[in-house]
């Protein structure tokens, strides 16, 4: 299975360190507006939601690119923009249903998460609560399922 950034929203504290570390590594500046991962804070609802590119198996951004600048690497599974081929037409930006690829004014290119190209993703390395992990297995999903299972178990009577 493919290694992906796995997100456990229950562990997030809304510190936006992921946005800071991502932008610092990839742009040289602490600029959340240019981060490739997004941490949104909803205080009254007590919810913190973190989202980033899911490296789709059949990426809409890839399909839509008229210059074939976007490709999915078969070995790593990472969907990457080739800056040499990208002409900045923003078709991919329209195509991605999740808003996870964007156009950057200063470079004139499309920009998205590439899982830090083989290094440990910087957001994972800096996340203070291990809300973010890089894993083949979707452990947060299994934990969520197990919470449900345990609730069912506790409600089960012996017959």
């Amino acid at each position, binding site marked *: 299975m493919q290694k992906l950034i796995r997100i456990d929203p229950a562990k997030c504290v*809304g510190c936006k360190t992921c946005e800071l570390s991502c932008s610092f590594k990839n742009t040289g500046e602490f600029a959340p507006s240019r981060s490739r991962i997004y941490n949104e804070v909803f205080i009254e609802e007590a919810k913190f939601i973190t989202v980033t590119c899911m490296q789709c198996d059949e990426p809409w951004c890839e399909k839509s690119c008229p210059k074939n600048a976007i490709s999915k690497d078969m070995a790593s599974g990472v969907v990457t923009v080739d800056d040499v081929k990208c002409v900045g037409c923003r078709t991919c930006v329209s195509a991605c249903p999740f808003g996870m690829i964007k156009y950057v004014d200063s470079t004139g290119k499309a920009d998205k998460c590439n899982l830090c190209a083989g290094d440990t993703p910087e957001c994972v390395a800096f996340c203070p609560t291990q809300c973010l992990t890089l894993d083949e297995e979707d452990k947060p999903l299994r934990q969520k399922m197990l919470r449900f299972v345990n609730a069912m178990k506790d409600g089960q009577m012996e017959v």
Partner: protein
Amino acid sequence: MNKAWQGKLLRVDLAAGTCNVEALNEEWANNYIGGRGLGSKYFTEEVSPEVEPMSPENKLIMATGPLTGTYGAANGRYMVITKSPLTGTIACSNSGGYFPSELKYAGFDMIIFEGKSEHPVYLQVRDGKAELVGAVHLWGMSSNDTEEAILSEFHGDAKVACIGPAGEIGVHFACVINDKHRAAGRSGVGMVMGSKNLKAVAVRGTGGVQVADPKAYREAALDSYGVLKENPVTGEGLPALGTAVLVNVMNQNGGLPTRNAQSGTFDKAEDISGEALVAGELRRVKSCMGCIISCGRVTKITDPRYAGEGEGPEYETLWALGAACGISDMPAILQRIRHGPHLPRFDNRLCHGAV
């Protein structure tokens, strides 16, 4: 100049209604450490010691430091520097949240407010530009409602620092509230802001903060995380129990101000402790921008007498509105810090003095 400074300050003349961008004084920025150091230097150079806190000649400075907007140990803070109406001397009240970093991303290290506006106004800052706009429609609103209104009329991603009714009507311990639940609480800086007819500052910034040596900075930040995580207070106490961790600690040491400080121990301290909060009202722990300590508490009161939700309490809330008043009813204490149309934002610690 240190690369992490943006090198610009915003000077807002409230009487004239003008906003001017100035270069930061490089010599001062190098010689006076951080937002507090530099802001205090500007203040003492520009404001005479004889100026009355409530006079238009008093200035109000919102200052960030070079590290604000970066990751590392508790960096996302700003200072509100002015002459305090409480003490008559220089005040330096600070707060975290997301507003301070946003000010850096908008390209400014500092805002200096001068004079007094004739009518209520608020400041809109957007990527290096700023303008004063009317705030008559916001005057009288709670800090929460003010922020909501500004987000809908200015920019949904803006970060807001504002005053509620306490600052407007001149309560001596009024706060400047940012991001709804973070407070520059000490010294009554909200009262000075109100005296200038300045309701709020709203900032939207999409720029970035650079550092001189990114590789070394990254290592230093990771080191600082190590220090914070190994320390029992910042590594265990604050993340687990928030600043409320201090209730039991202070009580055990005889330093919990109880029944108007007649005693240093409260027999019902357990009921208003960080531990009680975790067992009862706590929903989530929360951090400020770039901080890994996560001492913020998002709480919900299910008790039908006081049902509500939001952020807090801090240790100050619990001793000032709890132990010091002889109250051990946690929902009742929390209800006091909840937002509502008629609940002004006070410094909890000083509010107790008035109670």
